[in-house]
Each structure stands twice: as C-alpha cells, then as structure tokens.
C-alpha cells in the first residue's frame, strides 16, 4: 500500500480541471442519494438474501418475486443507515418476477424517485445498487456503474413464470444478491428492478449482461400489487406471427376473447398495440408482457388496407387458482442435475443453509405464530392472496372515502331518477328492490331483480343497464361488507371525464387515469366499481354478465351534491363498441321514501 503515496502526489501535479471535479462531486452526491432507498433483504431468520428499493415514504418497497419466494411473508430489511427493520409481503407478480413489500416501523423511509424507463436510450449511464454476494454487513449498498446496452429486450420465461418483457439490459455488474435491487439513471431516478443475467458457461457471475424489469411496467402493476393479491399478466386471446413480408399477422384467435369481439380476426395485421408500432412478433410479446390482466389497451389492426382502432380488454394468462397452484409447484425443491438454463434469474446471494424440505415457499415456511409481531399485525392468509390484510385495508379505505361523499344507507330501495338524452328527450328511471324500469324517448324497458342477474340485460343493446344500476344501488345501501363477495382489485385505468364526445361512435378517446377498483359479485354477475382516489367519488361501473359477453359500462361524471350526497349528473352508457346513451341527470329522488332499516 506504500506505493500509493508517490502516486497520489504525482497525480496531484496534473491539476484536474474544475469540470472533472464537479462531475465527480455530482456523482458522489447521486450515489449517496440512490444508496438511501436501497435495501438489503434477508429472510426473517437472517438467511438468504437479495436486494430491494423503497418507493414511497410510507415504506412500500419493490424486490423480485424470486427473492421473497424463499423468505415467505416475513423478512428483514437493512437500510443504508444501518437500521434493520421488519417487512411484510404485500403483493406478488410471479409472471413479471416482482414483489411488493412494506417496511414496518415508524417514521418516513427514504424513497426513490420513479423515472421513465421508456425515455431510456442505449448508451445512457446507469447505476446498479444492491447487495451482491451479500458483502455489506452494514447494509451500505454496493454500487456498480455502466451503460444501458439494450432496451425493449425480451427474455423467455425461466420455467413457467418469470418472463422478462420489455426489460432493460446493462453492462453494469449485476450479480447474485443484486436481485430485486434498483437500477437508476444518471440522475438517480429509478428506471428498473434488477433480477436476471445472461451467464451460460461462465458460471453465475456477471459477464457483462444483466437485465432489469422496467419501472414503467412495474408502475402499471403497482396499484394492483398493493391489493395484496397474486397479480396475473395479460393475454390478448390471440397469437401473432411475422409473415414472409415482415407483417405481424394474427395466426390464432379465441372466439370468446375480447379481441374477437372487438373485430380482430385471423389474418389481420397488427399495426399498433399499447401505443407502440408492432414491427415483429417479438415486439408484440414485449409490449403485451408489460400489462396486467384486465388492462384495456388501444390496438390498431389492418384488413384489406383499412385500419381499425379499438380498445381491447386483456384477459389473464392464467385461470383462477392456476397461478397460485403454479407458484407452489415452482417452489418444490428443484430436480437435481437439471441442465443450467441459458438466462436465469439470479440465485439468492447466499447458498441455502437449510435442507430443501424446509425451504418451502411463502406462507408455509414460517408459522404465523413465529412471525415478528409487527408482521403478524399486517398479515392475513387467504387463498389467491399474497397477503389479504392489505386487501381488507384498501376495501375499507376506498369505502370510507366514498362514505365521506355521501351515505346512502338510509335512503331505501325506491329511487326515481330523471334526466335527458343528448338530443333532449326525457328519461325516467325507477328503481325498487325487486324491479326497475327506464323510460326513454324511443321506448321503455323493465327488469326483474331475482336471485340471478345473468339474464337480465334490459334495456336491449345496453348490456344490462337496469341490472347494473340495481347493483350500484345495492353497493350504496349495503356497503362492501354486506354486498356479497367483494374484493379490492387495485388501481386500473378508467377514462377521465365524459367517455365520448357527443355524437361520435369512436372507441374511447378520453385519456384514462388510474382508479381504485372494487370487484363485487352478486346474482352470478361480476361488477367493477371504479372510484377516484383523490375525490373518493364513484366514477364508473362495469357489469359483465358472463366472461364471453361485453359488459355494460357506465361512466359517471359531473358529480354534484344533492341533499348532502355527491351524485353524478352526467352518465355515459356503453356496450361493446356502441354508445348506448348519454344522459344528463337533473333530478335524484332518493329520500322521499321511508328509511329502509327494516329491509336491511
């Protein structure tokens, strides 16, 4: 080490210029800033390990699914200031290899600024922070530095899950233990979550190729992960192939898919999807892989030289329960002597010290009684959920926010609503407990609300407006706890303001924003209720009588107060690609009837 002394003095003689020193100071500042939200994650017993990153001051943090799979719902997180805090699993995206966890403890946690991964270019500088090889015994993250080597990369699923679509590729070193940790741009904004590398024959250490899940994909999933669910990725219900002329064409399509109902057919050319030009079948897989199940995505396809623009509702990749079953199957002890996969998720940084039969996944591995108390107080087991505690919490949050806008429990079932169509014709809607009716300028319809609502689709071409209004009423009167089966889906895009400009038939021009969504099932019908997270208002209803039919969609806007309750005065009702009606509501008659306590 004595050799350094002459070097230092000699280097000093070169007089680095101010720009160089300024750049150095800036880099040091950035590294300090990105170190703070970076986490070292361990199992509750201190074993295993990976990395993570805090994304909000209340302690929500991101990591990889494959980091928390061995730890189960309780984990310990080391912060760069040396603190070690308890954390609990919140939600899982096993297909995308993402897990949301929450740090438990008082005070604010240092959170990363979320960047825009679509604005990243090849050649941009990137920082990787984390705990490779579990080196940091004081939890100060290791920082590696490199450039973005590739963007919009597709990496095939490892096994049945863990597909990396549209991911970022970097030559900054990503090694075992970096899994789940952050990738930052040069300004220190979070652009991805690291989790995978290409290794092949050179062992499981970095050889210049690491991958990060893009933050823009995670942003779509984030609101869903907060629901405590196991979140599925999207499928179109159609597959595409690149033909000899380089066009991307549909080579298979399910006739009960939404894509089919939107008019997509075998042989159609896919032009744009989710705002991206589709130049190859790979690009399509890339874009599709970044969407959660149920998301609505604009799509353009071409047939006989004519282009069609549609918004398509994506289905899930897995059927109900299938994903959870896969999770358990994936985490059975691995079959020995499997050939190494070419590209694989990074292993946790530490070799397993417990026998494999004890390293079962998630909930089974740590008995609830042995969890730290802070974790136990934020954890609840339920089938299909990573942690039901958070679902219950958000159901109550959304509902309490709505109650602050109006309490309908005392109104009773008999409602009379009056208004006009866009062309000025009078509309009267009457709702009662067992029946409802609507009178419009071009006719009238009635509906009976029996035990099953699956066949109640009047008025014609509305998809079941009266049944949807009945379910709306049921939610308002009963609340989620007495409605029937209700869960919090998370946040989903829903158009802001009127869904269509008057007099047009176009698909849905209004820009969507993320809205809280409660899913409620009653009478065999699934209904989605969308709430504005800022105001608490109910902004939309989507009632789907069955999976292979278009829902009845009601877009609420122009919310004004009536007798102490906030109610929408503009309704846009759509079914499939058609606008059913646009109604201006000018009277709500809810309270003129006897309170309905006896009926509850």
């Amino acid at each position, binding site marked *: 080490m004595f050799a350094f002394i002459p070097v230092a003095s000699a280097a000093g003689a070169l007089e680095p210029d101010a720009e160089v020193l300024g750049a150095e100071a800036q880099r040091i500042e950035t590294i300090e800033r990105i170190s703070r939200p970076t986490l070292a994650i361990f199992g509750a017993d201190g074993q295993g390990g990976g990395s993570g990153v805090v994304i909000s001051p209340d302690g929500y943090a991101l990591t990889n699914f494959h980091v928390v799979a061995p730890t189960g719902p309780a984990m310990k997180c080391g912060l760069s200031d040396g603190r070690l805090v308890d954390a609990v699993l919140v939600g899982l995206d096993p297909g995308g290899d993402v897990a949301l966890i929450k740090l438990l403890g008082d005070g604010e946690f240092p959170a990363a600024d979320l960047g825009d991964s679509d604005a990243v270019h090849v050649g941009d500088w990137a920082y990787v922070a984390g705990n490779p090889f579990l080196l940091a015994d004081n939890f100060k993250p290791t920082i590696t530095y490199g450039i973005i080597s590739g963007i919009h990369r597709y990496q095939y699923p490892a096994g049945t899950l863990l597909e990396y679509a549209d991911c970022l590729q970097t*030559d900054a070193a990503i090694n075992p233990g970096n899994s789940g940790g952050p990738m930052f741009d040069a300004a220190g904004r979070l652009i991805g979550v690291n989790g995978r590398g290409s290794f092949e024959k050179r062992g499981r250490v970095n050889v210049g190729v690491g991958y990060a899940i893009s933050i823009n994909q995670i942003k779509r999933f984030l609101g869903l992960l907060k629901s405590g669910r196991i979140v599925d990725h999207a499928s179109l219900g159609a597959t595409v192939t690149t033909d000899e002329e380089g066009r991307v064409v549909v080579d298979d399509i399910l006739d009960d898919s939404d894509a089919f109902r939107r008019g997509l057919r075998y042989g159609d050319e896919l032009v744009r999807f989710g705002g991206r030009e589709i130049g190859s079948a790979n690009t399509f897989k890339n874009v599709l892989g970044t969407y959660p199940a149920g998301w609505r995505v604009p799509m353009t396809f071409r047939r006989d030289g004519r282009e069609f623009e549609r918004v398509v509702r994506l289905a899930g990749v897995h059927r109900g329960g299938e994903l959870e079953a896969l999770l358990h199957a994936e985490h059975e002890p691995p079959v020995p002597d499997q050939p190494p996969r070419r590209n694989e998720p990074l292993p946790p940084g530490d070799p397993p010290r417990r026998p494999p039969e004890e390293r079962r996944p998630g909930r089974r591995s740590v008995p609830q009684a042995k969890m730290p108390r802070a974790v136990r107080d934020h954890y609840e087991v339920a089938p299909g959920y990573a942690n039901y505690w958070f679902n219950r919490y958000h159901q109550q949050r959304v509902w309490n926010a709505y109650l602050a806008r109006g309490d309908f429990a005392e109104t009773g079932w008999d409602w009379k609503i009056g208004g006009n169509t866009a062309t000025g014709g009078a509309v009267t809607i009457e709702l009662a407990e067992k029946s409802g009716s609507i009178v419009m300028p071009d006719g009238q319809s009635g509906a009976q609300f029996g035990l099953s609502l699956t066949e109640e689709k009047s008025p014609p071409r509305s998809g079941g407006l009266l049944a949807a209004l009945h379910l709306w009423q049921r939610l308002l009167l009963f609340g989620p706890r007495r409605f029937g089966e209700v869960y919090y889906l998370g946040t989903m895009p829903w158009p802001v303001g009127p869904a269509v400009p008057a007099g047009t038939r176009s698909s849905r021009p209004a820009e969507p924003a993320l809205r809280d969504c409660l899913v409620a099932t009653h009478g065999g019908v699934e209904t989605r209720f969308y709430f504005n997270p800022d105001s608490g208002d109910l902004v939309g209803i989507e009632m789907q009588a069955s999976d292979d039919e278009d829902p009845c969609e009601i877009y609420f806007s122009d919310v004004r107060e009536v007798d102490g309750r906030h109610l929408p005065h503009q309704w846009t009702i759509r079914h499939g690609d058609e606008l059913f009606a646009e109604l201006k509501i000018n009277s709500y008659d809810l309270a003129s009837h006897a309170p309905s306590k006896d009926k509850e």
Partner: protein
Amino acid sequence: MLLVGSIFRISDCGMRIFSPNPQSAIRGSTELAEVNPQFLLAHVRAVALAVACLVAGTGDARASDGAASLADVARQVQPKVVKLYGAGGLRGLEAYQSGILISAKGHVLTVWSYVLDADEVTVVLDDGRRFEARHIAADPLTEIAVLKLEPGDDELPYFDLSQAVTAEPATRVLAFSNLFGIAAGDEAVSMLHGVVSALAPLDARRGAFATNYRGDVYVVDAAANNPGAAGGALTDSQGRLLGMLGKELRSSLTGTWLNYALPVRAFAPTVEEMLAGRFTPAELADVDRPEKPLSLAALGIVLVPDVVTRTPPYIDRVLPDSAAARAGLRPDDLVVMIDTQVASSCRDAVRLIERLEHDAAARIAVLRDNDFLEFTLKVQADEESAEEK
C-alpha cells in the same frame, strides 16, 4: 469526466479500502498493491488524454458541448452491425454470431467459424430486413470471412475500413455485438463499454489448439467476447471502428476467458484483397505440411473408426512388423500427444502426424491403464516403399 475522477482519486480509494469491512480491505489491497507506481502514472496520463477528447455529459450522458453522446453513437453504429445465423444450435455451439457491414453494397465482415458452415447463412439487419448471404472469401489465418448480401438499390450504412482508427491503452471503447443472441428481428445489437487494457500479442487457445493469429489484439476490460459476440465491432467513443471482436478464447497463460478484438490493420489488407477478388487463402495445413508427409498407416497404426466430431484417438489395431509394433504400441492405447501437440481426437491425430516428414521420428505419447507412456516411431526405408505401392 467520471473515469478521471476515480483515477485521480485513487489514493482516496486506497484509504476507503481500509474501511471497517475487513473482507474488502484484503481483496482491495492484494489487487492494488501489485500495481507499480510508474505504470499507474502512465495510465493516469493516458486516461487524462483520452478523456480530454470525450466529454460525455455526467447528467444524462448527453454531451453538453456538442460532442456526440453515447446514445447518439449507439444509433450511429448499431445499423452497421448485423446479426448472423447459420450452423450450430447444438449444446455449447450457438448458431449465431455478429458481423460488420463494410460496404454500402452489402459486404459483411465476420469471423470464420462453424456458424458459416451452413447451406444458408442468414443476415438480419438493424431494421429487421433479412438476407441470405453469399460466401465471398475466408482467411483461416486471421479467421475472418467476408459475405455478401444483395440489398438491391439500397445503400447500407457501413464501416469504411480505410477510415479505421487505432487506440492506445486506457482509451474508452464500445463493443457492439449480438452477444447471447439477445437481439432478434429489428432489435438493435447490444452495446457494452470499457477501456483498452492493453495492445498485446494474442496468446490464446481454443480447447487444445493455439490460435493461428498471434499478432497484437486490443485487450479490453468489457465482457465483450461472449457467445455470439464474435464478428461484432469495437469502436472508440465516437463510434469509429477500432477492430472486430474475436471468437471466444481462453488465455494460454491463465485459462481465463479473453475479451479482445482484432485491430483493423490485422485484417484490412486481406479484406481489400478479398473485395478485389484477388484473395487466395493460404491453406494452413499446406503451410505446415511437408512435401512427403508421414501417415499413421505408414507407422502401422489404425485408429478406431472416426464416428463423431471428437472421437478419442484410441488405437484399434497395430499392424504387424510396423514401426508401431516395434516400438511397443498396443491396441486400446489412447493417443494423447504427437510431438509437442495434444491430440484430442482422431482428426487431430491424423493432422498432427501429417505435419511430420515421412522419414521423421514421431514421438507419440499414449495413455495405457492410467500410465502415460512415450514412444518414438520411425519408419524404415523398406516399409516406406511398401506403403507407396
């Protein structure tokens, strides 16, 4: 510039290495203590010079003074690098590699490898267009090959080899290739960054074989030479061509994987000959091959049938009254070395024997029941004439 910052502050780094973490302190000191101060100083100067000409911004890698940012360089270089698909696909043998466009009319420079040993070699351009490539010429010495696409009237972006530059150690470099076959269709090839660590003679092996090319290569600190990277471009930070990424090789000295590129000057004259249609490849075997070569048959050795690519060279039969019989070779002996070269397959054994003169004394080492035995075989004059009948 970031790089300079860290090197100027190397003494600080030394201090930080003695942090409370004993593990890293040990590792840091062992690596750095071996560096001799003069060497370091030379590097500091070299880096300072190199950096003076590339002021990539520190904020978002966009240049502040009008010089091209790395993102701009990427978009300028990537269209000149192509994805190549051919033979392979078996375990450990990727069926893809990279290539560089060297003319507007679709000449592609790449490494000469088994990937090209296919009826159809497909070249996919940066914009996703695919072409079947025609073989123009290959040079077994430098292991380069030139292919040709027919882009019609289109002018393709390309590297002009006559405009290639050279670089000194510590120059920042960029490596462009389709390593691991990550990019497909219209996806751009990958870009890695690093510096030239050394300009040094290639001393490397592929399996048992030394490489034919022994000239200088750019050794780089980026993990540039991964599967599929061979044939890619090494450029300076302005995107000017420095060399072509070579095949995956291990250092003869340490056995570690090398990251290197052939400098343009090592192959530019050959490529020029190839493009002019004047190139006649020097058959490597001919270079070493004597006028009248020795053969296994002349020695009285019959190897097992050569059925797979790397059939182990077991002796099947020893002909009676032959040189082999006299020396004491036996059936089931495994030929390990011929002269000083390792013979790892039947084909190797044949090739190595044919490098010897017909009347030379052949030293053959074999493995027999875990014993390593060496024999010297010499064909007698009368046997030789008998062989010629």
